[in-house]
């Protein structure tokens, strides 16, 4: 926890550098002050975290793994969009998350996937007229 706060302070420090050098007093004025306040506050928080006796909850909790798994599924789905398009991509995505999270049967997931794909295609693509990426599937 404390290490992470320190890490954040370092990030904030490095982000703070360009404020001073790159810009004149006009557009750089507010960012510079943001930088200064950020650095002061992050230092205080870091000191507080270091001195705190109770370290609080750890960053990784038992169920964090599940969240990471879902994150990976989301990322895979996003990567597949240029290839599969939104409708098919999200159909597979719903299928995967239902299986992973809820442990539903494959049949249920499959049906949900098809319903989702068709639903997205008509709701967003037709009714709301959003030009969804279709990918190579073309639908």
């Amino acid at each position: 926890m404390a290490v992470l706060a320190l890490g954040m302070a370092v990030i904030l420090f490095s982000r703070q550098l360009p404020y001073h050098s790159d810009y004149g007093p006009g557009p750089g004025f507010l960012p510079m002050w943001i930088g200064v306040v950020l650095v002061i506050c992050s230092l205080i928080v870091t000191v507080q975290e270091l001195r705190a006796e109770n370290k609080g909850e750890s960053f990784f909790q038992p169920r964090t793994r599940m969240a990471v798994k879902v994150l990976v599924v989301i990322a895979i789905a996003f990567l597949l969009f240029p290839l599969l398009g939104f409708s098919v991509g999200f159909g597979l995505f719903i299928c995967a998350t239902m299986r992973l999270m809820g442990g539903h049967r494959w049949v249920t997931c499959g049906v949900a996937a098809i319903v989702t794909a068709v639903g997205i295609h008509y709701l967003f693509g037709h009714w709301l007229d959003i030009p969804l990426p279709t990918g190579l599937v073309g639908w």
Partner: protein
Amino acid sequence: MDLFHNLYNGFAVALTFQNIMYCSFGVFFGQIIGVLPGIGAPTAIALLLPLTFSIDPTSAIIMFAGIYYGVAYGGTITSVLINVPGESSTVMTCLDGYQMALQGRAGAALSVAAIGSWIAGTASVVLLMAFAPALAKFALRFGPAEFFALTMMAFGLLTVFGEENPFKVIISTMLGLLLSTIGLDVVSGMPRFAFGVPQLLGGFDFIVIICGMFGVTEVFNSIENPEDEGEVLKGKLRLRDMFLTWEDWVASRWAIFRGSVIGFFVGMIPAGGITTASFIAYLAEKRYSKHPERFGKGAIEGVAAPESANNAASISGFAPLLALGIPGSATTAVMLAGFMMWGIRPGPLLFMQHANLVWGLIASMYVGNFLLLLMNIFMIPVFVAMLRVPYSIMMGFIVVFATVGAFSVNNNLFDVWMMLGFALMAYAMIKLKYPLVPLILALVLGKLSENSLRQALMLSGGSMSIFFTHPISAFFMGMAFLAYLTPVLRWYLKRRQVKAAQA
């Protein structure tokens, strides 16, 4: 009378078939969102925002307002029946509401909440009609110095009302401001923090950030901390059980009245919000009561007061949003983003330029509150059934809506990845106990704050004294300083106490 004329026009707008439909959908949807733990009003509105590109802004804002105050009703049901607050604004309701349910008086608890909410909501709309135009008229005199001071005060108050470490609140505010500076600088046209990435030149769209932070982050968060799935209390709720006895009325009438007044004024304070309102109302009621020992053991006043307050606050929160363009909570901040997306600038001029929108919205609140009263007396079982939707299905759809929302802003996949990035950032912030609301408020207000700061400094030739010599601005600045001082002072006092204890 000007007021009645305006209200008449407002009802003409609100009572068109289309707007009644949007209003009913909004309150119904809000009620569902309120019942479901793990998804709140800002998330719901953020996810629906991109879908409103093509509909009339008046209808859209009527729908969103419906969601906002509908949520304040809906959270009650789970608080009373399963002791799990559906929303943070109904935490206080659990204390006495669940106890009442255990005593077999769930119907009475839900009913007093619904009626109290309705009275408070309606009273709050009346007060809003009186206050908001006056506030707008007053704000017409505001110059850049006043607006900057006002945003400073709003940011300052966040540190007072937040539960979190005040320094973390400030860091979160600063991160929001920083995000708002990305893109072309409005005054000089110079790119800032774009790092040569062309997509960053236009700045981040609010929608992308909001969809990530409230939609996808909420999913991660709920996966990690699943709500305890409480047992719904056995026994059917019959309509007969919903009726209140005469003693109930006598016990709760002043609680409803006080709750409404407290809720209205707390809701108007920037950063006050509906949760704070319900806390204050509950505590006030306990203090006023002749029998404070009954609180926490199923006192009907303990349900009536916070429930009335959260509703009154959800409506009065529109006063600063509409009249000043300053949102007081995450939900109203998301709505402000919506206004900007539709090309409408809330603020003092809104009451003149978009009178139909404002009065239509206000009139729709009467309609919406009435619909909610009916729903909460006759349709409780329907909403209880909603609780059976497994989260594994719901979360998938939250992600779908967030993604399509982020995509539809500019129709490109870059925004979708950005959204995921912001979701991860917000997830880390929640884990490290950094509040998200200041970031969102600062993000939405950032441009206004910076531009008014720089305009004011141009007017004064670079002298900071402009903020302190104008009386209104000086007042806001003074409030801001006080607000920033309170946590420091509190921290100092606490340290002294600790030291004294050690010595």
